[in-house]
């Protein structure tokens, strides 16, 4: 066991998998000598050399496109997008190839790559450095999307992603990179992709979230005092493991969903639809969602206007309970 923050946990996962499997390579902008702009890949180039830890030219389509070729030909690339907001030039490669190679060749060729994506707001960054695009990623057929929320699942989900036979988009809550520490097992372990995690049992209401918003969720729960909230960390956006959410709502009869991504066509809409299909008769109140807004993510001075707050979450919980 060692105490680690999220940056250290991801670094540790990469190191263990690179030791464990020679086919694992890391590539991206500034991931080598600089150790990544957030230091997530720090030290890897010294341990594994510049053929396996590649400071690539500055081109996202290039990074993911070459990763597709590498993955098809026996490597396991872990590509870094410096910020998730810079993945757009690479979406062609993600959507048109990584997501479809297996289907196109009826399983003869596969594309086991990972794209790491520091995402989310709250770090006073420049434009395009703060978005949460999991709804867009979750809607790509043939892509798995996971979101870490703490050091433990950051390490376990990344190892699972690297070992997964399919392409995985791995979202990192950069605002939380150094905000919390946990005791992490020294050895490699996985947090399975496609498993929702019930973090805290409760009877009165179900609160569903993921990523950096898990912290806001905890804060809201504390502010509520003696309301018994069941807290669920989705962890995998797709393929969504909705059954634990359904089971929970069958027990509590009430639900609030919290995400930083914009509201309309956001992931909460899908979760509500699934609850409608599988837990309708258990619902005692309309489900509420607390989200970001359908506007361009604001620059630093106004970002708190956009980000969900514990106050907004607690208010929604009270409204659902008092329905």
């Amino acid at each position, binding site marked *: 066991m060692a105490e680690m923050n999220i940056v250290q946990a991801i670094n540790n996962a990469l190191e263990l998998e690179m030791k464990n499997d020679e086919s694992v390579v890391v590539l991206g902008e500034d991931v080598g000598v600089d150790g990544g702009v957030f230091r997530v890949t720090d030290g890897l180039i010294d341990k594994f050399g510049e053929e396996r830890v590649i400071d690539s030219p500055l081109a996202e389509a290039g990074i993911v496109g070459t990763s597709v070729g590498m993955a098809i030909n026996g490597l396991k690339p872990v590509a870094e997008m410096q910020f998730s907001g810079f993945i757009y030039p690479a979406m062609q490669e993600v959507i048109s190839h990584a997501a479809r190679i297996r289907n196109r060749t009826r399983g003869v060729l596969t594309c086991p790559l990972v794209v790491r994506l520091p995402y989310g707001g709250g770090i006073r960054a420049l434009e395009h450095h703060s978005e949460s695009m999991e709804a867009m990623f979750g809607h790509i057929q043939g892509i798995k999307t996971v979101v870490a929320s703490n050091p433990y699942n950051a390490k376990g989900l990344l190892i699972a992603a690297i070992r997964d036979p399919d392409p995985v988009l791995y979202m990192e809550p950069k605002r939380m990179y150094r905000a919390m520490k946990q005791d992490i097992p020294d050895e490699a372990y996985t947090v399975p992709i496609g498993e929702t995690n019930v973090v805290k049992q409760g009877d009165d209401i179900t609160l569903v979230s993921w990523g950096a918003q898990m912290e806001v969720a905890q804060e809201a729960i504390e502010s509520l005092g003696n309301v018994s909230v069941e807290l669920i960390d989705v962890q995998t956006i797709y393929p969504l493991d909705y059954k634990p959410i359904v089971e929970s709502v069958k027990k509590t009869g009430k639900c609030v969903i919290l995400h930083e991504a914009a509201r309309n066509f956001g992931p909460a809409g899908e979760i509500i639809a699934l609850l409608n299909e599988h837990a309708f008769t258990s619902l005692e109140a309309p489900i509420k969602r607390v989200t970001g807004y359908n506007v361009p993510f604001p620059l630093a001075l106004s970002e708190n206007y956009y980000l969900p707050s514990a106050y907004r979450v607690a*208010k929604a919980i009270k409204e659902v309970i008092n329905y």
Partner: protein
Amino acid sequence: MPKTVKHKFEIEHLQILDEDGNVDEKLEPKIADEDLKKIYETMVVSRVFDQKAVKMQRQGKLATFAPSTGEEAAMVASTFALRKQDWMVPSYRESPCFITRGVPLEAIYIYMKGSEEGSRGEPDAHNMPVSVPVGSQPLHAVGLGYAAKLRKKDEAALVFFGDGATSEGETLEAMNFSGAWKTPTIFLCRNNGWAISVPTTKQTAAESFAQKAIAFGIKGIQVDGNDVLAVYAATKEAIERGSKGKGATLIEAITYRMGMHTTADDPKKYRKEEEVEPWKEKDPIERFEKYLRKKKLLDDNYKEKVWAEAEEKVAAAAKKSEEFKAGHISEIFKYTFAEMPYIIKEQMDYAQKTWEEENNG
């Protein structure tokens, strides 16, 4: 059949003013004395503005800032060559270009402090706003030029990007489009040696960035990017070429990023101070001073006055930006569409109500 040589290409390098302030009189561009002084004054304001910005960021008064110290000649002299109707298309490091175009200093600070208010600009100023995604804006410059041509307007577009940006597909697409469409586009590649921690040798196997022009059938030239006269002359010529319908130009300006990539970066991690040292000798402002002194346009008095006035202007702008506060919460909703759809209006009403309750409640 023997192999034959189909084409041969050369890439010229242009320097007019050397490091000691000696000028090649045959190549010296004709610039009015007033304008030479204006270029100098703008470079000085840019330098003072830049150093103040880094300090302000450290004090929490700006969010993130990309400094331009050392690159003033490449930015100011090229922008200065533009005519009023031409377009300035920046990336994220070009504060000096905004300053050259007369954008108020406080607006730039306010943007860097984290408000879109700082990047409103003026409708007819023909300055594009900051573009953060690397390599995304050169295509806009081509489109701006194409639109001007179609609308029978004589407007060129000067687009800035870095050495790293030449690796992005869109940058290369832009050069190709400009060649195919013969647009009045000037691509100014600031080769400052680094893309964050990545040296140019890892970006490309080509000997120069200028030679990339050859593949797209546009003119390519390399200039000493710390030489005001070379940058000015090459840009002026490129504007004329575009304006006469003779197509686009790629100018590779060799310069150096003296500071950190942005205030979030620590260059000690990837480059040695020894590498930076020789570039201090090549400082573009000092070199231009030597030239002005020889031309009797600059003496100690004038120099002192220029720096003192720059300090004053920058301090006043910094103060204004410090007083600037975030707008009302409704501001983040207002500019999403020309007309606000009710589905967003509902979000705005909720946002306003909960924000009030939470913060003033």
